[in-house]
């Protein structure tokens, strides 16, 4: 059996770079979608908002400053190869990367230590939320994103049961977006998780927001549902910045999982147009 090593410092440096990059440089998928929407948007105010967002994102990239002041709570999806040894503490290496990105990169520190009582700012944006999956292999793959809470607060989960069927799924997703209305900084990206357990479903919805919007679910039935939901959401009229228009969402991404015979949970994680995520793969050196 071969084993591989990765330095904790490399993990820290990679995580730091991912969080700085995702906050400075909007993804090509989002930029392309904003530019397309600007061509088709019927509302004059809507077109003006889209122009400002494009200008904003170009400015942020050119000056390497955050494109939004809410640089988010740090969320990471990690695929950790089971043949990899780290010369240190993996969790701490990740948290240190987040700390360095938010302090050195002029990102906003938006995390409080206790959710209800003191609510004191931790001053370095830690702790990050780390979803780790052990996979077969000799690398560590990290997808990192800063999740703003203007849109996070508009998210919802419902434990639907099988008799609701596809119509029930659609209704819950559309109702959630309708309730969010102009608040989550439209045009939004809608991440949907269907199946699993309560917590797995929510995690899938988050994972869906980390997928590029120029991709589709590999299952053609869900790919079609993504398209159908996007069309329906863009009939709601909220438009760019919620001021009225045809561009309420840029994309709908669905992720699914097997579930229990009694269940059909659906989670909707709403993300603003600053759908920030970057990925990297660290290759282990053979021991």
């Amino acid at each position: 059996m071969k084993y591989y090593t990765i330095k904790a410092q490399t993990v820290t440096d990679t995580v730091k770079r991912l969080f700085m990059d995702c906050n400075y440089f909007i993804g090509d998928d989002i930029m392309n979608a904003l530019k397309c929407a600007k061509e088709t948007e019927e509302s004059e105010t809507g077109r003006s908002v889209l122009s400002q967002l494009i200008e904003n994102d170009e400015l942020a990239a050119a000056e390497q400053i955050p494109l939004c002041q809410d640089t988010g709570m740090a969320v990471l999806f990690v695929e950790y190869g089971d043949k990899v040894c780290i010369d240190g503490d993996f969790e701490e290496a990740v948290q240190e990367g987040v700390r360095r990105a938010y302090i050195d990169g002029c990102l906003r520190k938006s995390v409080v230590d206790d959710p209800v009582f003191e609510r004191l700012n931790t001053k370095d944006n830690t702790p990050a939320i780390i979803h780790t999956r052990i996979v077969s292999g000799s690398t560590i793959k990290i997808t990192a994103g800063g999740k703003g809470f203007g849109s996070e607060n508009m998210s919802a989960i419902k434990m639907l049961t099988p008799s609701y069927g596809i119509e029930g799924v659609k209704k819950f997703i559309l109702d959630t977006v309708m309730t969010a209305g102009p608040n989550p900084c439209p045009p939004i990206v809608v991440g949907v998780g269907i199946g699993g357990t309560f917590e797995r479903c929510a995690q899938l919805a988050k994972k869906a927001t980390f997928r590029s919007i120029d991709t589709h679910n590999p299952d053609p039935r869900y790919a079609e549902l993504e398209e159908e939901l996007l069309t329906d959401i863009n009939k709601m009229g909220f438009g760019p910045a919620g001021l009225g228009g045809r561009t309420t969402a840029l994309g709908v991404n669905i992720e699914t999982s097997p579930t229990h015979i009694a269940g059909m949970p659906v989670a909707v994680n709403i993300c603003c147009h600053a759908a920030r995520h970057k990925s990297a793969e660290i290759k282990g050196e053979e021991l």
Partner: protein
Amino acid sequence: MKKLTLPLTDEQISNLKAGDSVLLTGEMITGRDAAHKRFFELAQKGESLPVDIKGETIYYVGPAPAKEGYAVGPAGPTSSYRMDKYAPTLLDMGLKGMVGKGARNKEVIDAIVRNHAVYFAAIGGAAALIAKSIKKTEPVCYEDLGTESVRRYFVEDFPCIVAVDAEGNDVYELGAKKYRID
């Protein structure tokens, strides 16, 4: 595009209609969740606030740190509905303008009409761009709150849209209604 100078006058406010694009120049204070909670608790106890909000415009913002050489870091609006619990009290105390993003509840809109005030929407997510119109900032109070502290912003041609005018017309309702397809 209308140009407005701050502080707002009653006459200026009367001329604003929901949906108007405006550029604000002058001084405004900042404050979001934590500062509003403190203001509200003082007001409830009948105590005076650390800043006189009469005639003021408040911007719901918690900026990112400023890079060296910048007056302010990216500074876009935060969601206004979280301040809905506190806004009517502040409006009744003389606050004239609010700048944020997203819809307000009926109590806030009623308080806007009752006090002849106005609610502006800045573009959520355009934080780097908006920061260009903020020329200088200085501390006012609650520095312990960090990004949520209350500061005074000196702005020039700060772009926003009249979201709720003094008659209670709401661009979030009107805009979505106009483009909704049933």
